[in-house]
């Protein structure tokens, strides 16, 4: 267990977070510059476009206390970087993200492989504060930075046959060492119905707390669907496909009786291991009531009109 005690050190000896982050940014910039020199791109462009200048603040806000950045970045599930909830932060450095490109294919008029820079270029970034509810019964409030997924999909023009959107995480056991073991069938896959994907609350995030996504949070590009359990919000995306059939999704494939395709936050549908009526907000000792659709029912319940949500859970 990490246990350190040095009475000579006081709070004044702690490196200020800003300085710590500045150093990290410097290291990252240095790494990008090196990669750029080798591969011949302009590191400033990567920084500016992957980066967080000109973010429109307050696009979506929430009158709830933000979960501190330390908790947001040190606790979570990203099985590709280890199955413990504190593993991803420890193994994060393995996930080298430059260069990064995303394949857009399937039922779209303009399929292709797009560099991250080109993918992000047309989209103004905005800050959206969302609740995040994990199927395991814990939750956070996170200020994401991203843009609506729908805006991206429109650029590639879905064909009339495109009824679902399928996503895939990078599959590379060198950079995602957790994939060396077949805990789930890699690559991680997720999917949405097209109307869910086009919903204005559904975003692709590239940052949180005014910074580029930390590796463990799904760098460089991840989905955020705030009314669904967290496992739907797939990380480190390399492929987005429009499909006619409902796509296979990883946790559903692993245990279909436990994890549905829709996975809408629903206190009325119990899970065999986790009580879903309540949740523990990280930072609090006691549990609070879980809200239907994670509190976004007003905006999204209409998507499911007439569906039996205990059957399509």
């Amino acid at each position, binding site marked *: *267990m*990490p*246990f350190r005690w040095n009475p000579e050190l006081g709070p004044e000896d702690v490196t200020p977070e800003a300085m710590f982050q500045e150093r990290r940014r410097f290291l990252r910039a240095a790494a990008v510059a090196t990669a750029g020199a080798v591969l011949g791109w302009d590191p400033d462009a990567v920084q500016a476009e992957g980066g967080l200048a000109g973010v429109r603040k307050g696009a979506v806000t929430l009158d709830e206390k933000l979960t501190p950045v*330390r*908790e947001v970045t*040190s*606790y979570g599930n990203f*099985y590709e970087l280890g*199955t413990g*909830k*504190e593993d991803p932060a420890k193994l994060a450095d393995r996930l080298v993200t430059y260069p990064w490109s995303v394949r857009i294919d399937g039922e779209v008029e303009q399929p292709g492989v797009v560099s991250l820079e080109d993918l992000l270029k047309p989209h103004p970034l905005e800050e959206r504060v969302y609740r995040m509810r994990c199927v395991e019964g*814990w939750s956070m409030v996170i200020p994401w930075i991203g843009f609506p997924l729908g805006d991206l999909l429109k650029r590639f023009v879905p064909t009339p046959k495109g009824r679902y959107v399928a996503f895939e995480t990078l599959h590379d056991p060198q950079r995602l060492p957790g994939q060396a*073991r077949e*805990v*789930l069938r890699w690559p991680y896959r997720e999917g949405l119905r097209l109307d869910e994907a086009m919903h204005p609350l559904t975003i692709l995030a590239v940052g949180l707390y005014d910074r580029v996504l930390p590796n463990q949070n799904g760098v460089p590009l991840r989905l955020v669907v705030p009314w669904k359990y967290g496992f739907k919000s797939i990380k480190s995306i390399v492929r987005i496909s429009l499909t006619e059939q409902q796509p296979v999704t990883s946790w559903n494939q*692993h*245990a279909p009786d436990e994890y549905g395709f829709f996975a809408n936050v629903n206190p009325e549908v*119990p899970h*065999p*291991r986790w*009580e879903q*009526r*309540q949740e*523990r907000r*990280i*930072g609090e*000792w*006691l*549990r609070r009531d879980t809200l239907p659709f994670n509190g976004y029912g007003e905006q999204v319940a209409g998507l499911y009109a007439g569906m039996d949500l205990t059957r399509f859970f």
Partner: protein
Amino acid sequence: MARWLIGLLPLVWLGFGVWQNTLGANPVERMIRYSGDWGLWWLLATLAIAPLRRLPGCAGLIRLRRLFGLLGFGYAALHVVFFITFEHFFSWSALFRDILKRPFITIGLLAFLLLLPLAVTSTPSWMRRLGPQWGRLHRLVYPASVLVVLHYFLMVKADYRLPILHAVILGGLLGWRGVR
């Protein structure tokens, strides 16, 4: 010297962690897992005494068995208290629903209920009073330990390495009794 104080060291570590806020982002989860882990480990240690005491010079280990068993029960009790307090905050109806609806809770509780009479009858006076029945009663530790490991399996989502490791150790300890 009171040997049982050593058994409290994990608890001291946990208390220090709560006090210093070093238990990570989800301290409640950590407390529940940690108390459960130690309950299981003391239980496995209890079951390991019988084979180990046959090694040369190790006969004295038998004197530790009751202590280990009680520590196992103690950490299991703490695990149950943490669960009732932080998962349900003494809401008994929610607790009962949980016990009925979630098999892994049902099985964990069953294991605890099997250990309870063993802890109660662990004193010399109960040993005398029960006579030969005492040994028979205390064989309940075998089904209890199997249920505990099953409880562990059912809790895990996909990465079964740790439950498997514990199942192998338990299998060895019970298997040794079978072939002997």
